[in-house]
């Protein structure tokens, strides 16, 4: 699949011929119909609801079809504090979503545990168990921030290749689309993080 020369395409368009590629058409359709999974965990969900309502209107980006079933959803917006009791259910929902699937980690809690980070009951970020595409900081992030994340995700989808060595990860058979669900342990979740998904930053001490 070769890239079309922009000048040639513009010239052809002037003559009434619209040239595209399978990849562009496919990604154009995908990025403008991202259906989010309908669930919220905490106060960030209120901002997510505001984003979906008329003032901010996520329908302008094709994301208004919040699905009540993971089997029909493309995008998981983790909106709020992920407690350790809730984390296995989040991973299970993610596993039930069909590929290609994307995750937005919305707000300080979903990123790192936020203000509750050292709490005994709060997960230190959903990226310990599932891969995250876009992180939005904020407590909670404003609807504009969620729209920005949505546009970033659209940009990512638009740039994904369908073939070749650099094709999208979900098109590689070896790439896992399901991740192990953590178990409830006696003191903590087991394991506390999935090492294949998450590695804490290393603090290197020199000298």
């Amino acid at each position, binding site marked *: 699949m070769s890239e079309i020369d922009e000048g040639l395409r513009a010239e052809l368009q002037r003559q009434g011929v619209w040239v595209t590629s399978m990849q562009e058409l496919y990604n154009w359709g995908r990025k403008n119909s991202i259906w989010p999974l309908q669930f919220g965990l905490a106060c960030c969900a209120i901002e997510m609801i505001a984003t979906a309502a008329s003032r901010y209107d996520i329908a302008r980006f094709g994301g208004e079809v919040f699905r009540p079933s993971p089997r029909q959803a493309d995008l998981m917006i983790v909106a709020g504090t992920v407690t350790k009791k809730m984390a296995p259910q989040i991973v299970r929902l993610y596993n039930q979503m069909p590929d290609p699937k994307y995750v937005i980690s919305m707000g300080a809690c979903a990123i790192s545990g936020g203000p509750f980070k050292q709490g*005994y*009951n709060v997960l*230190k970020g959903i990226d310990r168990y599932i891969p995250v595409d876009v992180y939005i900081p904020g407590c909670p992030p404003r609807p504009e921030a969620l729209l920005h994340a949505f546009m970033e995700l659209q940009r990512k989808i638009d740039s994904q290749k369908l073939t070749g060595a650099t094709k999208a990860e979900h098109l590689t058979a070896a790439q896992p689309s399901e991740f192990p669900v953590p178990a409830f342990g006696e003191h903590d979740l087991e394991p506390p993080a999935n090492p294949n998904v998450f*590695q*804490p*930053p290393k603090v290197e001490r020199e*000298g």
Partner: protein
Amino acid sequence: MESPEQIKARAEAALPGVKIDIVPNGSPSRQLSLLIDNEHALAVARFLRDDLALRLDFCSNVTGIDWLDRTVKKTVKVKKTIDGEEKEVDQTTEEKISGYLEAVYHLYSMTQKHGPVVIRMRTTDRAEGVRLPSLTPIWRSAEFQEREIFDLYGVRFDGHLDLRRILMWDEFVDHPMRKDYREADDYEYEPTPHDDVLERAKQHYAPRPQLDGAEKITATDLHG
């Protein structure tokens, strides 16, 4: 509404064998509470709810307190004869109090529009004797909150019909609100550790005081 002393006097007169202590409160609010003995707790609770003058029909809040072993210092002025002169001297006595768990109930009356009356119950210790009578048969609203105290403090409520963990998962064995609770060591890294987190960070990294605060932090690239 009656004062806690009046409630205590009437309850003890109405119910034979009942002993109620008044827990002092040194704070500006001076809100006294009634410490009821576990054996007669249900009878006292029923009295508080059904007594026509009190009618404490609404239990708004139940919470727990963990008291560790502690020593209380009391200073008393004592007259002593020193060198033939009589002087007032401060004498400090130390009293050791062994730890216990406490359940605190805040009661209001919807019909009489008064409250709160605070009642407390204490366990005998923090290990074996962590049992208290459940007041759920008297106030239904105590059900979930007693479950929460069981979950977070480990108090077992006798007579509670459904005493399960409510916030933590069933497999969890600790009681996180106890003062001697130590959470699972899930330290990963902190870019700017301080206070307690710094202490924990030091357990995981060898301290190098000459480089303190000059660590080079790099994120591990998973895909690269």
